[in-house]
């Protein structure tokens, strides 16, 4: 039997009609990628690149205009495959008159889980919410709601975790705890699809990355491939306007022409050195460095 990946996105496109009814806006344009069993895949892109739209298409919240999405070979609407997913939305919120414990119990019942209150208490402890077990969600900060969404997502021991900017509202310590939990879950066998623009998080925990810009897939590969594929150089020059040193990073192919142009402009070059590539460099280079 051929390998069935937890998530396969094939030629996905999504268009939204314009508000006045004239034409449409292309949010995602013919993107294809997959998340294989046991992988942590980072989904990177600037604001408005189409990350959340793609995730909502995967979850069936948005209808794809074209293309196909498969979760373990089935359509996203299949209730059996949905049971295997944990989802953390970008701005999670819950009926605020409930306590986390009440919410987890009801969510478990809706999902047909057989856990008990002691299991949910352990989960609250794991996600750092044990102290607020009986506090109404309306009193929660954004970070606490994100912890709550992590607890809800982990409740069913999912086989695939889909996370949309999960660490956006968290402080550095909470982000580290979040990352640790993701790694623990991954060790348990969970595949992870992590959308983020905190590139250091992606660089720390992901095996692969998919980079999106302007709704199009501009780069995809293992971090090793992405970070080591092309040589980068850093040129340091003295700015004529401020008199301070300014650095530019560029691929090897552009290096000579840039040096020539700096010489032509009589700008003093302080040094040229090989730059160690970070995911940020790859991202800036792939997306052209600007929001599209």
């Amino acid at each position, binding site marked *: 039997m051929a390998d069935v990946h937890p998530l396969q996105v094939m030629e996905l496109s999504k268009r939204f009609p314009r508000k006045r009814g004239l034409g449409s806006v292309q949010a995602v344009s013919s993107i294809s990628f997959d998340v294989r069993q046991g992988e942590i895949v980072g989904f990177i892109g600037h604001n408005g690149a189409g990350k959340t739209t793609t995730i909502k298409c995967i979850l069936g919240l948005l209808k794809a205009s074209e293309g196909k999405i498969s979760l373990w070979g089935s359509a996203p609407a299949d209730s059996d495959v949905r049971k295997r*997913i944990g989802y953390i939305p970008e701005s999670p919120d819950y009926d605020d008159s409930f306590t986390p414990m009440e919410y987890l119990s009801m969510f478990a019942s809706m999902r047909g889980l057989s856990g008990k209150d002691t299991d949910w208490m352990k989960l609250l402890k794991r996600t750092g919410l044990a102290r607020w077990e009986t506090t109404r969600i309306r009193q929660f900060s954004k970070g606490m709601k994100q912890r709550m969404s992590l607890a809800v997502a982990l409740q069913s021991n999912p086989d695939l975790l889909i996370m949309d900017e999960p660490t956006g509202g968290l402080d550095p310590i909470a982000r580290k705890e979040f990352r640790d939990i993701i790694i623990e879950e991954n060790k348990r066998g969970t595949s992870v699809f992590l959308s983020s623009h905190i590139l250091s998080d992606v660089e720390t925990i992901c095996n692969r990355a998919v980079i999106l810009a302007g709704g199009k897939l501009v780069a995809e590969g293992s971090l090793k491939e992405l970070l080591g594929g092309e040589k980068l150089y850093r040129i340091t020059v003295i700015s004529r306007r401020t008199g301070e040193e300014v650095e530019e990073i560029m691929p090897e192919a552009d290096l000579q022409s840039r040096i020539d142009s700096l010489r032509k402009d009589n700008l003093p070059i302080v040094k040229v050195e090989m730059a160690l590539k970070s995911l940020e460099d790859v991202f800036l280079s792939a997306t052209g460095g600007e929001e599209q």
Partner: protein
Amino acid sequence: MKAVFTFSLMTLRMLFRRRTLWGILLVILLALAGIASVPSFDVSNQGRFILDFGLFGIEVGALLLALGLAANLYPRDRETGTLMPLIAVPLSRWQYLLGRFFGAALVQAAALIVTCLGLMLILLFHRLPIPGDLLPATLLIIVEGWFLLSTVFFFSFFASPPLNWPLTTMLFIVSQMSVSEFVSAMPSAPGLMRAVRLLLPHADVFHIKDPIAHGFEIEPVYFLIAVFYGLCYSAFMLSLALAVFRGRDLK
């Protein structure tokens, strides 16, 4: 169906914890007390007066409860982001709709029973007899309330809450009109008006307050047909609501 049941209970608990329910309930009970305190010109008619206006008050209460409880449910879920984790994983769209509807319907029914008990207390306070058909009359108002609730749900998928209120109220008023009253609004096209009226709901079937107030007996068959009609129309409105909801992109 377990997911729908749990989500209904969740909705029920949430609505009981909101102030809207208690505010509307208080308004209805105060209105009933107000009706009972209006002096009747003819003392022998006081019971009929209290019953007639009391049941009318409960019926308007059903409309207020439907709007107050449900007009903001879906828009609020969307606006706050509560909807996403629900629809993305544990619930499908029809389960969400039915769960919210059943939860709100139970709360509305409980509130209407309380108002009926309030009306009974007022009758007892005035040493007036409690007619045996008061409970069936309230039950029909509850069914009418569910029909109104399903209408509110339907409108809530494409209209904001401030627009939902006039739309549902208009449908409530039109549904009370007889065919002749409706045709008289546009006498130049009687055939068209008759056809339109036929399609629109007939909430007049739920009104047995006049016969009760005048001491007439209600045929059980009539009662059953009215309940059946109300439930079928509610199911029809919910199907329309689901069709709209299914076509929605949840951005």
